[in-house]
């Protein structure tokens, strides 16, 4: 009888140990996606994909350049609208589009931009966040997820949700500071695939002011020769910086 019970126990899937702290959830996420060493081997990435606002019939090509330690540039090109560039060089943050012109970020919006630009956020989050507090579990898409509230060293707390079973980040909620006002942002994250030795999400659905914006990443390359001007602000932004 005892041997049968043992056999049944062995046949049951091992239940993941309940994580007790936010730090542990974040560490588990790093392990689940490839481990600290794998992240350390990535020095830059180029992501290419498509942004779609299906309800409005708007679609655009997206290219995102990112590099150590804290540089990022996202270029979205929409037919008839032109290029929309958003970037940070680790010190400044900007956006530029033909439609709205150049904008140098400041205050909390700049802080958010600089946090976004940190290349190794997953392993270096303590350099930008004061704390990561585990606030229990919530059901997300029918599956239990850890809710971790990340409090930046400067700025409003953000909530990240990690699937209990896989350890992968599946959801993010925050309130973004923008010149247009404070805007709640809700992001569903998925489509994890292995690129550059790390599991990276290829699918993100953002809900901003009631509008759904889907970002599908088709390709991710890492450790490539980036264009010399990948992180250079557009000329109109430079002109604003010079003022």
């Amino acid at each position, binding site marked *: 009888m005892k041997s049968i019970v043992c056999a049944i126990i062995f046949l049951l899937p091992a239940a993941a140990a309940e994580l007790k702290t936010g730090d542990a959830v974040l560490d588990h996420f790093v392990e689940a996606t490839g481990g600290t060493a794998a992240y350390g081997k990535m020095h830059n990435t180029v992501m290419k994909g498509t942004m779609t606002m299906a309800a409005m019939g708007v679609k655009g090509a997206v290219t995102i350049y990112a590099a150590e330690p804290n540089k990022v540039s996202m270029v979205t090109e929409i037919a008839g609208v032109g290029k929309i560039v958003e970037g940070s060089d680790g010190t400044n943050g900007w956006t530029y589009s*033909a439609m709205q012109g150049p904008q140098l970020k400041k205050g909390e919006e700049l802080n958010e931009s600089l946090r976004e630009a940190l290349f190794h956020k997953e392993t270096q989050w303590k350099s930008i966040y004061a704390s990561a507090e585990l606030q229990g579990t919530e059901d997300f898409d029918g599956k239990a997820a850890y809710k971790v509230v990340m409090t930046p060293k400067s700025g409003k707390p953000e909530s990240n949700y990690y699937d209990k079973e896989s350890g992968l980040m599946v959801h993010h909620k925050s309130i973004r500071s923008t010149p247009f006002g404070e805007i709640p942002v809700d992001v569903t994250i998925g489509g994890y695939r292995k690129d550059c030795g790390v599991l990276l999400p290829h699918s993100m659905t953002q809900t901003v002011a009631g509008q759904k914006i889907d970002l599908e990443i088709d390709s991710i390359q890492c450790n490539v020769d980036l264009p010399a001007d990948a992180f250079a602000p557009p000329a109109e932004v430079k002109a604003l910086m010079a003022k």
Partner: protein
Amino acid sequence: MRLTAAFLLTTVAFAATPTLSTEQRRLNIESFEHIWKTVRDKHWDPKLGGLDWQAVHDELLPRVEAARTMDEAREVERTMLERLHQTHFGIIPNDAYDPGNSDKSESVQGETGIHLRILSGHAIVWDVDGESAAHEVGVLKGWEIVRIDKTDIPQLIARLENAGTHSRLSELLTSRAIRNRLDGPAGSEVSVEFSDIAGKQMSRKIFRRAESGEMTQFGFLPPMAVRFESRKLQGGEEYIRFNIFLKPDMIVPRFGEAIRDCGHCQGVIIDLRGNPGGIGAMAMGMAGFLISQPDQKLGTMYMRTLPIRFVIFPRPEVYSGPVAILVDGFTASTSEIFAGGLQDLKRARIFGERTAGAALPSQIERLPNGDGFQYAMANYISESGLQLEGHGVTPDVVVPLDRKALAEGRDAVVEAALKWFQASK
């Protein structure tokens, strides 16, 4: 024999109102429900101003279920939206998205080049595009349009005005109804009878030409032609006009170049008469060429869940001289946001006639039956606290449409702006 005649009439009746397939009926009902739920869930005012929206649904659902044609189904949907008594709610027929094969000239939308305004119940030629078909056959500003093919235009105006509200918006809708009769497939002919200011009658056959300008399509808006012009006036003032706030990658850079060209000129005239609006964000970006102070805004749009400020981002080079914006009853939406915002900031002086008062931020979705559905998802309040919807922008200097001036080739509104530039020296 009488039986045969009755049968024939029945056949004719069926031919005139073809029944929809079961699938089309289902899609129309689904579309009706989508429209109803969208308004219920996304209108900025959850109480819809006290309207019993459920009752509207229950009253009209049987009618859409019984609709025998697409037009009947659309009419029910429009009736539902009209109960809101607000602009920027509408149905765009599916075929508006399919301009046809450009190789077939008859399927390309054509125009005469005539722009008209309604003056005391008469359709007056307000402008004629240079190099247009109407220009070539000698149509002149100030002429009255008396008949288009078989349609008597004064009678049509009277009929539409009796059915409408006599508001600025009804003038806009009336002129669109007339414009629809002037427009048609490129290459086709339209016969138009005119009367000049002295009452002399004349007729012209006009072969419509493909719309001038760069074609663009943004989201679920139907394809549209975008035109921009800028030129120096005699005193060196810059005159800028564009027909719509679309295609920002073309309009905004050209607007910027024109402003830069002006340098330290005596004034800039931005002519928004007849401009129906477009992409709201363009107003913010274009105002940045005229406003140097940071953190200024044109106004605020209020969605159900949050307000969004229409912030101006100053450009590196900003024009600081006088700015005159010309408006009329056909200036609507984003144009009103731009004009009203700069008026509130005391950055521009507004000349002409009160604008349409149709300034609700909206978006367009495709319905399950393929039609487009435009709905307002926010109210818009200008920086001075004025709700533009239903009120419009009141000019600082009111210059009514003057047929005599038009007939003499003068533009009384431009003249008023130039006079102000002179006085501000």
